[in-house]
């Protein structure tokens, strides 16, 4: 049975209209086509200004494509004839967590914040209560339900923001550099939640980032460069090409660098490794295969 993909993008082009009158319109996306299936965990990499956030905004119907189509669960969201109800239905399916936690919070209390989405959807009060409690629990913030957002740390605010999206029961969540303003602890917490949402609840994740170690946790990495996808594959496949990534003004995780350099020195070692654990394992097995054993 062929299921409708959750997100299908066809020949998507986008130009920022130059309103000032001087200079020409700037095309930031030059005809993207790709598909994201239900339950996928995708990391989208690209340097600042590569068009990642524009793509996310197009998928959220904040911007309208200049050309091409975006299908969310089979519905063409670029269709100008879409009714308000249809727009809401799409936005309910696809949630987005932004970069700056401060700029996406409307309420003065954490649980009110989480309730905002469901309230907009017109869900009955008792069910909102239940969804809010569940969502807060899912991000481990139940005890902060009555706190003011301004008294929370960046990581905690971002968890509240995630809960706010979860309470809308979306099929897919975009994370638009959601970790880039957080401290290491906040990043760790948010990344764990992202991983878990995909693994346990089957939520489709599209994580826009320029942190290589975070991207390595996804199951698929897509690299956007100057408005085109230049790489698409598993993290292992993508990170095995450090030169190509370097040309896209990106790097690879340190462990992948170590493996790549060892290989270049002539050691018989795989370079498709992204975590320290796998890297250590590869080096151990190589040492084990040698004539002399240590330890």
């Amino acid at each position, binding site marked *: 049975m062929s299921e409708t993909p959750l997100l299908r993008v066809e020949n998507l082009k986008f130009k920022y209209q130059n309103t000032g009158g001087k200079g020409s319109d700037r095309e930031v996306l030059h005809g993207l086509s790709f598909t994201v299936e239900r339950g996928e965990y995708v990391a989208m990499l*690209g*340097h*600042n*200004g590569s068009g990642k956030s524009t793509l996310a905004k197009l998928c959220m119907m904040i911007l309208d494509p200049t050309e091409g189509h975006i299908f969310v669960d089979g519905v063409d969201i670029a269709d100008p004839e879409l009714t308000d109800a249809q727009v809401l239905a799409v936005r309910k399916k696809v949630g987005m967590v932004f*970069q700056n936690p401060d700029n996406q919070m409307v309420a003065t209390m954490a649980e009110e914040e989480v309730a905002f989405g469901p309230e907009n959807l017109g869900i009955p009060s008792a069910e909102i209560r239940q969804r809010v409690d569940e969502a807060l629990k899912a991000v481990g913030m139940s005890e902060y339900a009555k706190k003011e957002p301004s008294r929370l*740390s*960046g990581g905690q605010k971002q968890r509240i923001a995630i809960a706010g999206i979860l309470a809308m029961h979306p099929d897919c969540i975009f994370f638009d*550099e959601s970790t*880039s*303003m957080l*401290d*290491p*602890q*906040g990043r760790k917490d948010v990344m764990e939640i992202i991983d878990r949402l995909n693994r346990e609840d089957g939520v489709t994740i599209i994580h826009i980032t*320029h942190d*290589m*170690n975070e991207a390595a946790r996804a199951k698929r990495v897509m690299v956007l460069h100057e408005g085109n996808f230049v790489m698409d594959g598993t993290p292992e496949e993508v990170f095995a090409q450090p030169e190509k990534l370097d040309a896209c*003004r*990106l*790097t690879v*995780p*340190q*462990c992948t*660098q*170590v493996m790549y*350099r*060892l290989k270049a*020195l*002539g*050691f*018989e070692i795989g370079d498709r490794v992204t975590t*320290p*654990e796998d*890297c*250590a394992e590869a*080096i*151990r097995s*190589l*040492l084990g*295969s*040698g*004539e*002399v*054993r*240590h*330890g």
Partner: protein
Amino acid sequence: MAKLELSHVGYVYNPGTEFSSVALEDVSVSFEEHAVTGIIGHTGSGKSTLLQLLNGLLKPTTGQVLLDGQDIHETVKAKLAREMEKAEAEGLRISKRQKKKEIRTELDELRKTLCFRVGLVMQYPEYQLFEETVRKDIAFGPKNMGLSEEEINARIAKVAGIVGLTERHLNKSPFDLSGGQKRRAAIAGVLAMEPEVLVLDEPAAGLDPSGRTSIFQSILEYRKETNATVLIVSHSMEDMAAYCDRVLVMNRGRVFMQGSCRDVFEQSGELEKTGLDVPQVTHLIDLLRSSGIDLPQGIFTVDDAVSAIASRLREGGCS
């Protein structure tokens, strides 16, 4: 001699009220001249408070902040007493009134120039841009210093080169620049004051890998040109390892560790106990060491890791 020194510094926010909270407690650190020191710690570890103490934005509740050995908040009376005592011990006779006047001018001058001598680049500095053009914005600090037009222009040209802004950028409105360019323009605004001590709070936060590299390279270039002492707060252990000579680890308002990168990253276990990371390669070496592979401790760069592992593999007959 230490360029900048904190001696038993404590800082309490809103002292004597129910909101009072201790941000720093008995912090003694010295920052050596010309060194690049990285400062790491959790949010709330007291890093930001520490930075604001360095250029006089905050005044320590207890203890002293010394720049070139001079307490930046010393009162005229205290200094006079000290100098008089010294003179007496040396058997010199000096006019107390004359000395007092001298000291007053000296301390006034110190306070006035402190923020120019210790340049602070705050987090997300692009939010401080306000002038019509980037050039004017960079000139804001030097103008406040009272420099001549020529000197200001010379400095603008110099710092623009360091941070990689072209003439075209300089004539634009700062609000028309890209995120990375804004950041560099804002940093240039502080560099143009030519501070002897340059303090930066997460200068590369939110930038992509190439943006990060270019910011750090600008900082290093500034140091090379001016011999300044540099302090960088960063969350990225990889950046610390790559760009800093020394590392200061803060935890719960106290100094947790300080030393060279090697000294600090050698104690990766201790760092992880406070919830801080170590560079990924250090973690890799730790993993290998714990499975009995004989590798040196305190490796924190990819280069060192590769050469250590390679030599180990060669010994093992793997090549």
